[in-house]
């Protein structure tokens, strides 16, 4: 049995969750639609798991996550939200959330998530896993490479070959600023932080030969 605190601005949803959680043997120690109230109660009640919606009327679940992280509150948070934005997934993970689930997911999945995070493991819903990949990493090399457009591939090759933005711009009839935007975009898509990483990726995926450089 796990002590769970529910934060959602919809009372009806909180009731539904409570029913499901209780039915599964969990203990709903508290619930709230207001982050401020929730923060105080979480600190006071010390639940093991927090089910948190990101959209709380005029306020955001990220506020509560930020505050919990700042205050180092020991609670495993599962974000339960309608948002499937990769940026939200990534942001939630960055702020210490252990799970991310979309509303409407099967109750069994929710219960699995509570069990997982309660035992200190991360849990991402089936769809959310893809979003997390988009938001945080590029996934495996082949998949990442497949997401590059023809010009992004061309740009990656030229960057790896040591061409400057100005040189690439001249070659491709683009402005240096556009080349910079391209460079940032493709590195984000590939999940590489800098040019050496991009070089390693390119060699690894056969985008260029090791001898070419």
């Amino acid at each position, binding site marked *: 049995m796990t002590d769970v605190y529910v934060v959602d601005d919809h009372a009806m*949803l909180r*009731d*539904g969750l409570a029913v499901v959680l209780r039915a599964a043997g969990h203990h709903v120690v508290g619930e709230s639609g207001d982050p401020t109230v929730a923060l105080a109660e979480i600190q006071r009640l010390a639940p093991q798991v927090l089910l948190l919606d990101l959209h709380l009327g005029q306020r955001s679940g990220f506020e509560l996550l930020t505050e919990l992280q700042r205050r180092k509150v020991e609670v495993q948070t599962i974000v339960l939200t309608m948002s499937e934005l990769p*940026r939200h997934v990534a942001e939630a993970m960055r702020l210490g959330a252990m799970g991310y689930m979309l509303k409407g*997911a099967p109750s069994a999945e929710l219960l699995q998530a509570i069990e997982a995070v309660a035992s200190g493991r991360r849990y991402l819903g089936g769809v959310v896993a893809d979003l997390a990949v988009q938001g945080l990493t590029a996934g495996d090399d082949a998949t990442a490479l497949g997401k590059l*457009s023809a010009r992004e591939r061309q740009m990656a090759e030229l960057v790896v070959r040591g061409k400057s933005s100005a040189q690439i711009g001249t070659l491709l009839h683009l402005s240096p600023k556009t080349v910079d935007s391209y460079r940032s975009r493709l590195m984000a898509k590939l999940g590489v932080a800098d040019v050496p990483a991009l070089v390693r990726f390119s060699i690894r995926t056969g985008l260029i030969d090791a001898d070419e450089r």
Partner: protein
Amino acid sequence: MKSSHLVLPSGLPTDDRRPWYARLAAAWRRRLPGRGTPQGGNDAETFYAAMCQAHPQAMWIYDLATLRFLQVNDAAIAQYGYSRDEFLQMSILHVRPDPEPLHPPPTAAPSAACIWEHVCKDGRRLEVDVQGCDLVFQGRAARMVLLRDVSAEQQLKRELAAAMAAEAQAHADLQQVMDRISDGFMALDAQGRFTHANQRAAQLLGLPGGTVLVGRSLDTLRPTPGVSMLADRVATALRHQRPSHCEQRLAADGPWCELRVFPSDRGVTIHLSDVSAQRRAREALRQSERQFRLLAERLPAIIYRAPADATAPCTYISPAIRQLGYTPMQWASGAGPNWAQSLHPDDRMRVADELRTLHATGGELHMNYRLRDHKGQWRHYIDHARAVAQPDGRIEVQGVMVEVTELRRTEQALREAEACQRGLFEAMAEGVLLFDAGQRIVESNTAMTGLSGYAQAELMRMTVPELLRSTEGAAGQYPAEAEMRHKDGHLVPVEISQRPVREGFSVLVLRDVTERRRAEQAVREHKSELTELTERLLAQERETTRYIAQTLHEQVGQQLTVARLRLDATATMHADAMTDALHLECRQLARSLDQAMGEVRSVLHALRPALLEEQGLVAALDNEVRTRSIDPARADVLLELDEDDLGLRWPADVEYAAFMIAREAIVDAQQRSGCTLVRVVLSGDAHSLQLEVIDDGQPAAQVLPAAPLGHLGLVGMRERAVAIGARFEVQYDPVCGRTATLLWLKGKQ
């Protein structure tokens, strides 16, 4: 000849000297022995006294020291009017008022003659030739003086000198006059010697400057052709005693001279004048006359001279008469039809009257008439005729006939054209004004009367500025639109078309645009209403979208979530009691709920730009661009902005409109062929926003592809821009591609 011892009366004829000698001898004989002179003089003294006394001319002897008279003779007494005693009481200063003589002596010798002015007792003044000699008389140093009255002689001399001076002056004046005249003048005596000649004469003869002719004869001059010719002329004139004249060049390079020779029995007088200018003028006149005749012969006008009788043949007719098909000979000889016969019957009476008036009053006359040519065609002429009285008293008509047939035809055509134009002028629906340089209305059409309310006569008394309320018409140039004052006082908006028609005149065409103004106002109002409606629609759309999104998110999504949770809970709690069919039904219901939830999310994504409200335009565009770039098969989409602009926020409606425009532009670009890259360039600050969506796709076809569901395409973009008071434009460049630009400036709506 004077002698210091014996003074003889000079100027007397030898025979007249005899009585004087006799008187001198008698005086000498009457001398008494021992009587001597009062001062004990000697014989010489006695002789001097006797001689003085006996001399027929006035003589006296005076003391050189006191100048007092010592002795005077009878002639002196008679000449001066003083008695002897009076003389002996006087000194010579009494009779000699001036201390200096009138004519001093040529030498300083005492006996040298000089002329003094003496005064007689009665005041007469005498000019006296005085000669004297010094002697000793009565024991004193004295001078014996012989006095001769030369007053008359001196007067004659003076008159002679004056006469000679006058003659010399007259001669000099004559010479000056002769030298001043521009013509040459010479006078020669019968022997061929020049008695008079001026400098011009020598010059015209080609003689060197300064040559003096007077006193010389012709044969002594240098034999130039001019001199030779002159000698021949002089000889001929003297021989025949007849005046002659000729024009001759007297020097090789000299001017042409008119030489006039007037002989007399004492010689010849020759007058030479330079006639080069006259000759040139005559030659020019002759040339001019030739040219005039040539011109007259070639003029298309017919020049004629004719007697007063119009039926008589012309005395002269120029070749231009051929334009009627006749030769000058036919017309002048009477062989062909004459002028009177060729006149148009309708013109005959009038022209005859005009000719009679011309003959009666003289002067000039301009006649218009028609003449029939040899083909029977009527030709129009203007005849500038003049009555000229001949020396024999006859009246002759001289004139120039100018054919104006084409002019008449043109005038007729012009009248017809004017009538046509007038018809058009009057038929025009627009008001038309013709005004002069002073902007006075000189003509108007019927439509103008209707438009302005003024009668045409009233308009004729007005100026354009009085009619049009325009401050720009001062210089005669009116704006394209103005307001016209109707007679009843109300203002009529008019459209103006202005055009100059001829020097100083312009035409104004005025069109009443009241209805058009109303229509334009209505269009403006409708456009404003449309814009307002668009704004409201877009606001409504945004509100509706927000409401739907909120409903989907807050209500439907939550309800579906709850439903799913409850379904799962129910199925779990009652799993044992449920039949298989019910389990299947629960699973199908769960799938339906999942599907509905997925659709709700999809719609939410389309309706509510992610991150726009919570993180702003930059984050939303970044998310949108990333989302649109996931598919590598589609055109790349890049967001370009400065790092400084990352945190910028703008008003919610501006961010929403900018986002929706960017989304529309990206979708539109990705749909067009050839598009490989879409750049979203965002810049601005708190007071402005500029969004450019630049793509390299082909320009859109004329028929735009249907916008995807939920997208309004370019029209929607423009309307969204208008709704926030921003400027939106789309430009296409073959090199740079298409650029959709949104520019929003705070407070510039």
